[in-house]
């Protein structure tokens, strides 16, 4: 049966259909991943053609390097600032907006607007809003008697500033994901809970909404963590890692090592470390999604 002419023609056609995509996946994903791994074992720099095999030296350097430790610390600190807000604010907004009747779609559009906008252009706007001298934010704070903040010049503040901008740009995105999750919860569960005496909104939330929202919540948590780890645009445009490396996050460090200093071998090791982190997140997501499918 497998050898009928029609079957054979179909198989040949299948190969033709997948050929362009397969070749490109080979050239764009598979070969580069192998090359990154190979390069991470050498001292290759773009500036000279001569390079040597150095084994795990780059990885040893990486774990001993203060720049790497600093970038990791910054990234985690930023993630700790960013993630609770990205999760809780979006969830609260989604619940509040879902209960709105007339205004739901207007509010959805207004909160989603930053997601569609070009972050690198809006970063310039935020730079002006957060200007320490003449910015609108400090002016507003001062009218309330709160001293202005040096948003980008102070090493202890700069990661907060970047987290605020990221929150602004991502809340609408997470909110829409939560809204989709909320809409999928069957109304009769709330009615059943009300009969059991869960009438108060807080009761309703913990007895029905939160358990039913599990998969969505997991999903938002994982995607937001990856977003946090991928912070790059606002750093490149607004701070370039400064002041004094205070906002040098992981991806920006990897970018500098590769494309400013051309330490390709070392930067490859950094890239693979980054990939490792992404894989861990993907794994967490896969494990939890499977478990959640059961109910």
């Amino acid at each position: 049966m497998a050898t009928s002419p029609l079957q054979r023609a179909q198989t040949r056609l299948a190969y033709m259909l997948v050929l362009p995509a397969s070749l490109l996946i080979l050239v764009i994903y598979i070969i580069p991943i192998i090359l990154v791994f190979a390069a991470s074992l050498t001292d290759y720099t773009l500036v000279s053609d001569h390079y040597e095999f150095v084994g795990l030296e780059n990885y040893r350097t990486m774990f001993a390097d203060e720049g790497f430790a600093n970038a990791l610390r910054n990234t985690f600190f930023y993630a700790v600032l960013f993630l609770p807000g990205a999760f809780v604010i979006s969830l609260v907004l989604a619940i509040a907006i879902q209960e709105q009747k007339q205004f739901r779609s207007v509010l959805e559009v207004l909160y989603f607007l930053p997601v569609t906008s070009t972050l690198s252009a809006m970063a310039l706007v935020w730079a002006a809003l957060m200007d320490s001298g003449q910015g609108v934010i400090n002016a507003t704070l001062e009218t309330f008697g709160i001293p202005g903040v040096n948003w980008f010049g102070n090493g202890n503040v700069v990661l907060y500033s970047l987290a605020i901008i990221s929150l602004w740009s991502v809340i609408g995105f997470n909110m829409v994901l939560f809204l989709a999750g909320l809409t999928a919860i069957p109304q009769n569960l709330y009615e059943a809970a009300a009969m059991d005496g869960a009438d108060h909104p807080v009761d309703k939330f913990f007895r029905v909404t939160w358990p039913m929202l599990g998969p969505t919540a997991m999903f938002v948590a994982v995607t937001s963590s990856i977003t946090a780890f991928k912070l790059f645009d606002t750093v490149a445009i607004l701070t370039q890692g400064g002041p004094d490396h205070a906002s040098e996050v992981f991806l920006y460090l990897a970018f500098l090592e590769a494309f400013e200093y051309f330490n390709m071998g070392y930067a490859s090791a950094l890239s693979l470390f980054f990939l490792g982190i992404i894989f861990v997140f993907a794994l967490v997501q896969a494990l939890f999604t499977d478990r959640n499918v059961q109910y």
Partner: protein
Amino acid sequence: MADTLTTPAASWLERLRPKSIGRLVTTVLLFAGAWIMVFPFIWMISSSLKPTDEVYDRDFTIIPKTFKGWENYYGVIFEQPYLTFLMNSFIVCLGILAFQLITAIPAAYALAKLKFRGSTILFGTVIAAITIPINVTSIPLYIGLVRAGLLDTYFAMMFPFIVSVFAIFLFRQFFRGFPDSIIQAARVDGFSEIEIILRLILPSAVPAIAAFSIFSFVAHWNDLYWPLIVVQSQDKMTATLSMMQYQSAFDTDFGRTYASATVVTAPLVIAFLFARRLFIRGITMTGVKG
């Protein structure tokens, strides 16, 4: 008489019950929050209509005291190369999208509906590749482009994205839902596989293709990372990348600076306002991308 008077009063009181007050407060708070979300856009548009000294004026007014909107936008569009930047962004985004659709749709159809050896391996590779971001493969891709002498070309700007493993995955899931019986019937009627794809599968997949197209276009319009690596001249600069110039006092006319930021942001925001549902669906698809 008394009855008719008390009824409206009672319902008015009814409306002031704690529950509806709570609802009113929520609505007010939601709009206050929305004001914060939208304020940067209002500030940007307002500043783009102002002369430089008014942009950093401490008492901010939405309506400019001196209107310099015409000069600012004229300067951005006709005296600075912003038309080129926008054109480059359009060329790159549309080029990427066209290649992604052309490569993904046939592959996804084969993976969904045709039997061939290696299909499991291919699909596994697709799934694995979805988790690999450009930041990991950028080094060898860049070196390859340097060696080939292709830096600062449209090809280099599009190359890493011309196959979208995410699109293959998405379309494959979508095509699988297409009834086999219809495909079989079409084969019996003498349709070739290509005709089946073009005349049966594609029309049914329009919503998925539209959502993916928006996702792809937005992602690459807003991308800063890859253009920053491969673009070297103003000729090839994208709209998003052009925003990098302002960190080095590229333009000290701040009104004009924000006019250019508005010009760069406008295409997507306007498109969003016209196709809200599609945009929200398209962009939140990234969720799957992880």
